[in-house]
């Protein structure tokens, strides 16, 4: 959140003798309008203190189960120096004043760490100033604790609530001049706080998107084209309209996508064509839909098949690569050398769906030219923009309420259900709750992109990795990969091998792709860390020691590096790797027959993670993951420890599920439809997961994503150690493995 440029802090009085501190737009910018927006900014009030001392703190990020309602308010409360039990957290609205409300990419912590603490510190400083003036003493002589200001010298004290009205009249400190706490004095950051809505969850209160009820609301079900870009030719609308409970049935033409690989994140408010059925209950709409007969024109993707894509990938891999992403040294010469051992492998990973347990849904109410929306979006601010453009109304006429989401994992970064609900509500002129069935959800996702990697490595006589080549074959056109379907040319071991060639080729794709938890990393970590393991075994080295040795061989500075490449810090990675080895007893323990350990690491979203998995594989290739050790370095602080541990354990379970999932295409249609053919781990399969954090002197970074990527290769590498069979294709069921 970049607040210094466009905003300044301001305090105001609130009713009942309280005060409020927030970020207010700088007047000059308000007059000119910030670039790209044509509306005035309004203040974002983050913290208010009532005369009874209750601190109300606004949470501006969406809650998806990652703990966002606690996280940022904890930062404010810490510097405000109040007791957490006197804090009331409320959701903010949605608007530009909150500094970009997108929840994704594990960005909430790193981007808000400074500003949120400063907002809390500013409020505290003004309260202290009010006390000092009341007592006629210097502010420096005053201290605070638990919502009380003390003047120890004269044994006087005043509660924040008593000072609130006066504090509002104190000069507002400059944002950058604020003095922040010494971290050793933290009482809230680093101490577990209970989930803000846990009580409501445990008593079944209607707090999720799917639970939203608006008076007079109708229910919508929307049958979308099963093939990307398909159109409705005709449908038996009259028959549908005559069915019980059905109020409206109509063709939605769809809106042309802004580009071939549509992006609902910020613009291009396109959505798929189909038939909307609106009824007095969702069940009625859904029942009518079973009788729906649509004649489609599927268009150009109607013949697309997964198997054909795989064959095409092999053809492309045999041809000169479409593009070289990175080259160092002379890899071809190294491969030709007589004294080297060459290792080659082909890896393949599938498309997978997010499958959040709460299916996509949105409630919209269009009335008198204005739109009101209740949404679980992870990207509410871009969603508001998109809806305004779609309906051709000013953004200020779109009011968006954030509602708790039953999981996000990146799926709710895409506001397609929001666009659909808005369109349907406007068409029927009534409030409408649109709910997707599970089948809709699995078949109309923004899938984690599949891909292929063709590897070649040369190992010299001393067992050193001399040359590395990987040819990434995936989807895209021209210079562009499909959305979130690319490859980070800085991925390890790039920068640690003197002869390196990273290449890419593309083929067209008629499927929407997007960010899934640890995008770009959840597949890449598996291929790269698996092949490194192959190289280590070929070199006759211990896979953990081989990685540690490789991390010492940074070639940085020897070649120009793509500035977009995200490169890791080898010292931090070695740190987590060594601790993971220690925790898991790597090389120190005798395991049961049939059991083995596997190790892997990955850097993503600012976080360093090394993981060890202990697996046992039986004669029928049934895999039991006995235990997983996770070590993460996400900087100096773990803000909410219990929630953090929960996130990491969840990431591991999620990653294991990814080893058995796939989305495939037949005649341009997605084959899978529900949890029976796009399954996930169940309780008996979930391993014990020991989580450790290595605290280092670095600013805290996010945790939603970086713990996930290493688990796939850690388990695959363990399976190799246990069986001698290398998993080179996901889902691993393709090679006959399954979780016991």
């Amino acid at each position, binding site marked *: 959140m970049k607040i210094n440029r466009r905003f300044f802090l301001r305090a105001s009085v609130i009713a009942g003798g309280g005060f409020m501190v927030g970020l207010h737009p700088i007047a000059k910018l308000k007059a000119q309008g910030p670039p790209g927006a044509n509306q005035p900014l309004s203040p974002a009030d983050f913290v208010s203190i009532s005369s009874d001392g209750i601190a109300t703190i606004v949470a501006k990020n969406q809650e998806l*189960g990652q703990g966002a309602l606690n996280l940022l308010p904890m930062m404010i409360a810490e510097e405000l120096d109040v007791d957490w039990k006197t804090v009331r957290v409320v959701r903010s609205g949605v608007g530009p004043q909150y500094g970009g409300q997108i929840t994704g990419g594990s960005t909430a912590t790193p981007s808000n760490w400074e500003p949120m603490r400063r907002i809390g510190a500013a409020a505290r400083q003004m309260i202290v100033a009010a006390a000092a003036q009341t007592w006629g003493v210097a502010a420096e002589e005053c201290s605070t604790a638990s919502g009380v200001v003390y003047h120890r010298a004269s044994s006087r004290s005043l509660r924040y609530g008593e000072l609130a009205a006066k504090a509002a009249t104190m000069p507002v400190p400059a944002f950058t001049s604020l003095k922040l706490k010494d971290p050793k004095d933290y009482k809230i950051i680093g101490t577990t706080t209970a989930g803000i809505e846990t009580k409501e969850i445990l*008593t079944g209160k209607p707090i999720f998107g799917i639970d939203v009820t608006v008076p007079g609301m109708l229910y919508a079900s929307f049958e979308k084209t099963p093939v990307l870009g398909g159109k409705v030719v005709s449908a038996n609308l009259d028959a549908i309209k005559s069915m019980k409970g059905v109020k409206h049935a109509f063709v939605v033409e769809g809106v042309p996508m802004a580009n071939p690989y549509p992006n609902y994140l910020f613009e291009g408010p396109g959505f798929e064509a189909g038939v909307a059925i609106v009824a007095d209950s969702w069940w009625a709409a859904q029942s009518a839909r079973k009788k729906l007969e649509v004649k489609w024109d599927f268009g150009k993707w109607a013949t697309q098949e997964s198997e054909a894509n795989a064959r095409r990938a092999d053809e492309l891999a045999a041809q000169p690569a479409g593009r070289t992403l990175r080259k160092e040294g002379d890899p071809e010469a190294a491969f030709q050398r007589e004294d080297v051992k060459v290792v080659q492998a082909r890896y393949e990973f599938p498309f997978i769906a997010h499958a959040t347990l709460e299916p996509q849904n949105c409630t919209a109410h269009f009335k008198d030219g204005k739109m009101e929306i209740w949404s679980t979006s992870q990207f509410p601010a871009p969603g508001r923009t998109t809806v305004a453009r779609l309906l051709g109304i000013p953004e200020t006429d779109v009011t968006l309420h954030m509602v708790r989401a*039953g999981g996000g994992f990146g799926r709710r970064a895409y506001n397609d259900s929001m666009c659909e609900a808005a369109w349907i509500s406007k068409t029927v002129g009534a409030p409408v709750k649109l709910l997707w069935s599970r089948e809709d959800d699995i078949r109309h996702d923004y899938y984690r992109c599949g891909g292929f990697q063709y590897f070649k490595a040369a190992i010299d006589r001393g067992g050193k990795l001399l040359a590395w080549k990987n040819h990434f074959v995936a989807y895209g056109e021209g210079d562009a990969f499909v959305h979130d379907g690319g490859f980070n040319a800085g991925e390890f071991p790039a920068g640690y091998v003197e002869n390196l060639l990273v290449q890419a080729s593309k083929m067209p794709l008629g499927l929407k792709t997007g960010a899934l938890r640890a995008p770009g990393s959840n597949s890449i970590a598996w291929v790269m860390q698996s092949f490194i393991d192959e190289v280590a075994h070929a070199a006759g080295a211990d896979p953990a020691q081989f990685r540690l040795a490789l991390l010492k061989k940074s070639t940085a500075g020897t070649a120009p590096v793509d500035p977009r490449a995200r490169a890791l810090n080898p010292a931090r990675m070695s740190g987590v790797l060594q601790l993971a080895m220690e925790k898991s007893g790597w090389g120190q323990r005798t395991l049961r027959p049939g059991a083995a350990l596997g190790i892997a690491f990955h850097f993503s979203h600012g976080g360093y993670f090394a993981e060890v998995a202990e697996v046992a594989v039986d004669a029928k290739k049934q895999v039991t993951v006995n235990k997983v050790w996770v070590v993460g370095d996400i900087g100096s602080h773990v803000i909410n420890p219990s929630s953090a541990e929960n996130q990491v354990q969840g990431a591991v379970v999620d990653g294991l599920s990814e080893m058995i999932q796939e989305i495939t295409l037949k005649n341009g249609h997605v084959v899978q439809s529900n949890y029976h053919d796009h399954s996930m781990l169940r309780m008996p399969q979930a391993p014990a997961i020991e989580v450790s954090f290595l605290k280092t002197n670095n600013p805290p970074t996010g945790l939603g994503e970086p713990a996930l990527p290493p688990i796939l290769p850690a388990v695959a590498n363990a399976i190799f150690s246990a069986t001698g069979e290398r998993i080179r294709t996901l889902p691993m069921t393709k090679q006959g493995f399954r979780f016991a």
Partner: protein
Amino acid sequence: MITLTINGKPRPFSGDPEMPLLWVLRDEFNLKGAKFGCGMGLCGACTVHVNGEPARSCLMTAAEMSGKSITTIEGLSVDGSHPVQLAWEAIDVPQCGYCQAGQMMTACALLAKTPNPNDVEIDSAMSGNLCRCGTYRRIRAAVHQAAELGKVRK
């Protein structure tokens, strides 16, 4: 007209007798605790008790519920004080929380029959309930804790 007994109260229902219990509860009686996840009996998010047995409310019709006694998460306690709820809170189980009502209803039915279950019994009773966020090990710990709390209470 069908009469269901929901959380101890008789509730007349005159809508479509084929409507699944899940939607009767959610959209007719405004009890939103049971959740929709799959509509096929695969996820357990919609779990309620029918005559004390855990049941997938997405698979049962209103007509089949005539004369049956149904308990939903809202009927577990008025204030979240059921041992299962207390244990879930103490262990800090939920992430997104969407699956948890179904998880707790299944756990509650398990504990009614098996007051002191071991890990294998818990895993087998709970294996029909998916948690997309992966809170399984915390759920298991919470079931153990609820068993302890239940003993104290007796």
